[in-house]
């Protein structure tokens, strides 16, 4: 018999029924089902069931995040190296990055699971796999320099207010990871603003790395030219060796992840394609408006796609099925409007240089309304059967 199985069998009686730790039954159950996949017999029709379950569903999102995560860790170290004026090898950069990123991830999972287990124990339901994804998405949206207590606060807000107060995974209407980020964004703008992205700032006096979206061209110059000169050429933005939040910088890695999710049918391609379309069309419209050469208004769709966190957001955040609409037409509109709002916030609102987070949260709120309208429409197309 498998030794893990033996251990679990030994522990079972303490965690179930009238055992000493029966309050922690959800934790025990989560551990047990992590090792040994539960597959009881079906009780009613249909007697056969698909092999896909929520554990695998969420695990696949984690897998899709791996390129972004690994690149994010490397880039954190790489940017720090740049700031220090040293050239690190890949492994040196990676290890340095790990020193910054790993604590953030550990704190996120630790605090996140604390809340999840607390709520599951009180309510007596099983621990949902949704937190696995939230707990990895949230760190990737943060700058590597963020203080760990803020990470803990952010994920607590995201999990408790963004999800648990509504009843847990499946019943939240906002993306919990983004809710947590929005909380930090508005509460601690200094740690989240565009001037402190580079991990080395606390070691080198006076160094600050700005993100591409906060670049403004001087009077009379074109934004694209200035971007290229300041290390934000299209290729650099696409491959992502630029300052920014841990996970957002590489458009290439985001596309890899998005492709994986779409091919395995975990994420809905309608949201992603709708979003890219919405962003491109809006960017083109702004591009064609005369004037504004020196700001992001005239940056054009490609720069808008590759800079900032749009591709990360639309691939991993907007495709969170719980907070997105449940109808296919709704998903197209949802994606499109996220793209549209992202650009609108970026270029038309001087208060925020980046608009992805707000666009997604805003559309999360409208997702039920979109569903409602689409359902009304589809019902009107059906031959009534009442």
């Amino acid at each position, binding site marked *: 018999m*498998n030794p*893990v199985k033996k251990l679990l069998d030994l522990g079972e009686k303490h965690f179930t029924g009238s055992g000493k730790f029966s309050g922690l039954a959800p934790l025990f159950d989560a551990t047990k*089902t*992590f*090792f*040994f*996949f*539960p*597959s*009881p*017999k*079906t009780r*009613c*029709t*249909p*007697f*056969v*069931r*698909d*092999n*896909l*379950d*929520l*554990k*695998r*569903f969420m*695990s*696949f999102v984690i897998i899709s995040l791996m390129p972004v995560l690994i690149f994010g860790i490397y880039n954190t170290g790489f940017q720090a190296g740049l700031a220090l004026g040293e050239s690190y090898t890949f492994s040196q950069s990676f290890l340095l990055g790990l020193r910054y990123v790993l604590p953030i991830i550990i704190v996120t999972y630790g605090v996140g699971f604390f809340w999840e287990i607390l709520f599951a124990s009180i309510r007596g339901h*099983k621990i*949902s*796999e*949704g937190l696995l994804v939230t707990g990895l998405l949230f760190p990737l949206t943060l700058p590597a320099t963020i203080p760990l207590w803020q990470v803990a606060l952010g994920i607590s807000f995201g999990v408790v207010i963004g999800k648990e107060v509504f*009843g*847990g*995974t*499946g*019943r939240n209407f906002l993306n919990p990871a983004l809710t947590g980020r929005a909380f930090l964004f508005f509460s601690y703008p200094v740690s989240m603003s565009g001037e402190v992205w580079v991990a080395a700032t606390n070691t080198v006096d006076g160094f600050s790395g700005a993100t591409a979206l906060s670049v403004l061209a001087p009077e009379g110059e074109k934004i694209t030219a200035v971007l290229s000169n300041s290390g934000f050429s299209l290729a650099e933005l696409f491959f992502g060796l630029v300052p920014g939040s841990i996970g957002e910088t590489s458009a290439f890695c985001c596309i890899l992840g998005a492709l994986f999710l779409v*091919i*395995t*049918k*975990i994420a*809905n391609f309608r949201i992603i394609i709708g979003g890219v379309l919405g962003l491109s069309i809006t960017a083109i419209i702004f591009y064609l408006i005369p004037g504004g050469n020196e700001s992001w208004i005239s940056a054009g769709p490609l720069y808008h796609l590759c800079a900032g966190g749009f591709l990360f957001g639309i691939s991993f955040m907007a495709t969170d*099925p*719980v907070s*997105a609409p*449940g*109808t*296919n037409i709704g*998903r197209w509109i949802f994606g499109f409007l996220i793209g549209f709002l992202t650009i609108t916030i970026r270029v038309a609102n001087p208060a925020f240089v980046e608009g992805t987070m707000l666009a997604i949260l805003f559309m999360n709120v409208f997702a039920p309304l979109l*569903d409602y309208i689409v*359902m009304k429409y*589809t*019902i009107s197309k*059906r*031959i*009534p*059967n*009442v």
Partner: protein
Amino acid sequence: MENIKILKGFKTPITGMPDLSVIQMPDPETVAVPAVDIPYIRPKLLVKKDEPVKTGTPLFCDKRNKCISYVSPGTGIVKEIVYGEKRRLQEVVITLDKNRGKADDFIQFETVSQNNIDKIPKSKIIQLLQQGGLWQCLREFPAGDTADETHAPPMIIVSLNGNDLFSPHPKVVLENETFFFELGIKILKQFSNRIIVTSRQSSMDRLNKIKDHITHVVPDFYPSWDPSIVLYQLKQSREDNRSWCIQADQLIQVARFLLTGRYPVKRVVTITRSNDKKPHLIVRQGMPVKDLVGSLDNNYTITTGRFKGRSVDFRSHMGFFENTLNIINSNQEEELFGFIKPGLSKPSVSRTFLSCLTKTPKNLDVNMHGEERACINCGYCTNICPNDLTPSFIMKALLSDDIEDALSYGLLDCARCGLCSYVCPSKIELVQILSFGMDSHYKDKE
């Protein structure tokens, strides 16, 4: 002949398709008429234990319409009346009288001649079929209850294929029955001007003469041939919702009964099992399950349909409407790190298993493959529902007791094909919830 274009359904190839050869099974010791597979029935017993019955003697009737009776498929003695929970009638078991040799003692009903079958008044046919225990072959949409003889259906759908992927092949069922089939269609024409005969694509090339009667061909994946799916594709107005349907094998029995005046007891059934090719069997109606499946160990579930059927006990008997038994494996083993295994042989409609790269037929088992979770709105159910429903929305409406919303979303179009529950990654019993909603709405209306 028209092709119906259906895009959604269960397209994974699976193993266990029965062979087209036919074997005649000898009569069993006991036969039975179960009541548990008859939708909505409120049975009223008409026989007592140890009472002798002839072939065609009514065993029980439906309290809601006492003319509709379920009759004995054999001659012998009532051995046992089995009750379930709340004293619900499960089945009436009859010990066949072996001393009579092969001949049954039939109750002789009135006969009609084949020449004037289209001139006999409709009421006469209804009366004969109700007495003879065959009226219930006609089912009425949307609930699937026994057809209401007081109302004229806008169309009648005759389905050549059964409720399971591997229900008896129409070639075997209809091979020598063209005459009765044509007669049956004639009888149906008395009830409705529009008779739809449907067949799956793969059955078409072996149908010979019957082919001329087929009006619509449906794609070859489950559940395209289900009459509710066909109805959804064909209906043009809300009146069409109250159409009728009948299975082709039962239509033949109706015709045979009217012509001979004797209750037809023979059925063609299939037994399916993964990695096995069993022949079609000609058996008496109400065969004991154990005679059909042979001896098995405990790791199996026997059902009368993978997606749409009931699970049957080893000691019980096959029902009036049932013609398939699936013997499906169950996996007792809890796999180590099962949730992240590559899964080359695990069928899934998603593409999260390597099995999606191969086209080889897969084995299905009767395991849940996970635990129940809250609905995450992933849309798998919507994307597979052949009747374009949004099961997750309807489920939420039903769970919040909002039957009006559920109905407006199209609840009554549900074919109960079970595909939504099949695909759900949160393992929510969608079809169960929808079915319950439909049933309680229907019973309220009654």
